């Protein structure tokens, strides 16, 4: 039950901040509409990366990067103001805290994904069973983003978190292949991009949309591996904060 009380508090903090709606939901949707509009106006020379079935997973992964920043900022602020110390002194187990921070941001991630899918479907993305299969890589990368937020929020100061959050969003944007073809960039940058989990999550979701499930496995393993490692690190870092 305690995790629900903490989750309820964190949801209120999140929902009462207008930046949540602006950055986490409005900006990705506006970007999506912009790219679709550019593609529609491109006449016969359609831009491959801006095709709705290619673009949608990329926009979703980009939207999740804001979750990492919001969660990190909330956690560092709670540490700075000693609010977290007040909670840590209460008779609550570590798992309740972690779930209390996890749940609201997971629900926000699902809302982001839902909103982006609605726009995509309106723009012509076919509704098939394949969309359900995209949930596997996308939920994994959502958990990765939340765990990264808990990890950085547990070890950084509020000031550092702002900078690191911005870097994380930029890295997600540049190295995920969300709206740039990584094979065209090639070389070292492509290698860096494929060493990170974002591009694998997007590629797996694109394959799922195409119904090419068998080729998803290597990409899924990358994302799964990263997610497991970051989840473990985030739990260790958070627990270290509880009793130094």
């Amino acid at each position, binding site marked *: 039950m305690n995790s629900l009380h903490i989750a309820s508090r964190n949801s209120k903090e999140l929902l009462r901040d207008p930046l949540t709606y602006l950055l986490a939901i409005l900006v990705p949707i506006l970007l999506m509409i912009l790219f679709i509009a550019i593609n529609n106006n491109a006449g016969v020379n359609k831009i491959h990366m801006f095709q709705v079935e290619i673009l949608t997973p990329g926009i979703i992964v980009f939207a999740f990067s804001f979750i990492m920043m919001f969660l990190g900022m909330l956690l560092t602020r709670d540490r700075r103001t000693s*609010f977290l110390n*007040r909670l840590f002194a209460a008779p609550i187990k570590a798992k309740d805290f972690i779930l209390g921070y996890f749940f609201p941001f997971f629900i926000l991630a699902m809302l982001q994904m839902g909103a982006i899918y609605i726009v995509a479907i309106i723009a012509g993305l076919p509704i098939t069973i394949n969309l359900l299969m995209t949930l596997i890589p996308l939920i994994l990368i959502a958990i990765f983003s939340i765990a990264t937020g808990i990890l950085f929020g547990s070890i950084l100061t509020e000031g550092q978190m702002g900078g690191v959050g911005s870097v994380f969003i930029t890295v997600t944007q540049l190295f995920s292949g969300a709206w740039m073809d990584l094979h065209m960039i090639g070389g070292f940058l492509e290698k860096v991009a494929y060493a990170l989990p974002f591009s694998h999550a997007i590629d797996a979701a694109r394959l799922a949309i195409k119904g090419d499930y068998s080729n998803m496995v290597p990409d899924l393993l990358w994302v799964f591996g990263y997610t497991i490692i970051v989840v473990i690190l985030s739990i260790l870092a958070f627990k270290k904060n509880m*009793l*130094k």
Partner: protein
Amino acid sequence: MNAIEIRHLFKQYPRILAVDDVSLDIKEGEIFALLGHNGAGKTTLIKILSCLLKQTKGEVTIFGTNIKENQIHLKAQFNISPQETAVAPNLTVFENLELIARLYGADADTAKVKANELLMRFSLMERANDRAKTLSGGMQRKLSLAMALISEPKLIYLDEPTLGLDPEARRELWNQIMILKRQTTILLTTHYLEEADYLADTIAIMKQGRLVAMGTSHELKTKYFSKKAVIVQSHGIHDELIKELTKQYENISVDGNEITIKQDNLDYNDLLLIFMKHHVIIDSITNKEATLDDVYLAINRGEVK
């Protein structure tokens, strides 16, 4: 019965020994004040007692339970008001109170009743639906204390509860703390000596992680600062006079038109003769009893051991 028993407690950080061999007992129902400069180890000690920091060495028992054992059970018996106001800024005043009540096990109805009681008691009812971040510093401190009380703890840690408050708000918070006296054990840290003097049954002074003095306010004043002070005010103070006074008395200080002489059994006739000899007219002479400030300053300057 002792609420807290601390034996040979140490906290070593990589570069600092923050708590250095501290042993003390805090009786149930008393207000115990910890005094000390910034970095003296007060907050570190409170963090260890509230299970937020692990001690390097030593034993601590709270209501008979070792703090290394069954922390969830132990935590249910105390509550804290940290140095910072530690409120959730985007929750309303009511929601902040309700949240803490729920986290300490109250059901939804009980949490609401308790929150309303504390809103009344701390005169926060009018601001109940305002977000905590819109409250003044003084009101946030009141809310912070109310949040510490809502679980009806047997023991409360108040880390500098009146820091940065104006005298009126401070007095109001003192009154709230005084209401708790005898019902709840309170360990508070403070920089304000008059706060410790007014509130505490027992005062302990920490310096560089060590406990250097402990006792009631009266005990500290008599034990560590037995010398009485005489303050002489005059507009004719000159170097020759000061030179002679310095020869006669060990402990004198001059501040503008004021000379302070700290000495027991001072013979006023001798003192007056010195002033007459140097043709200095005395405006006033006053006796000054030792205050906690004197004790604190003397200990921190190393004037007494």
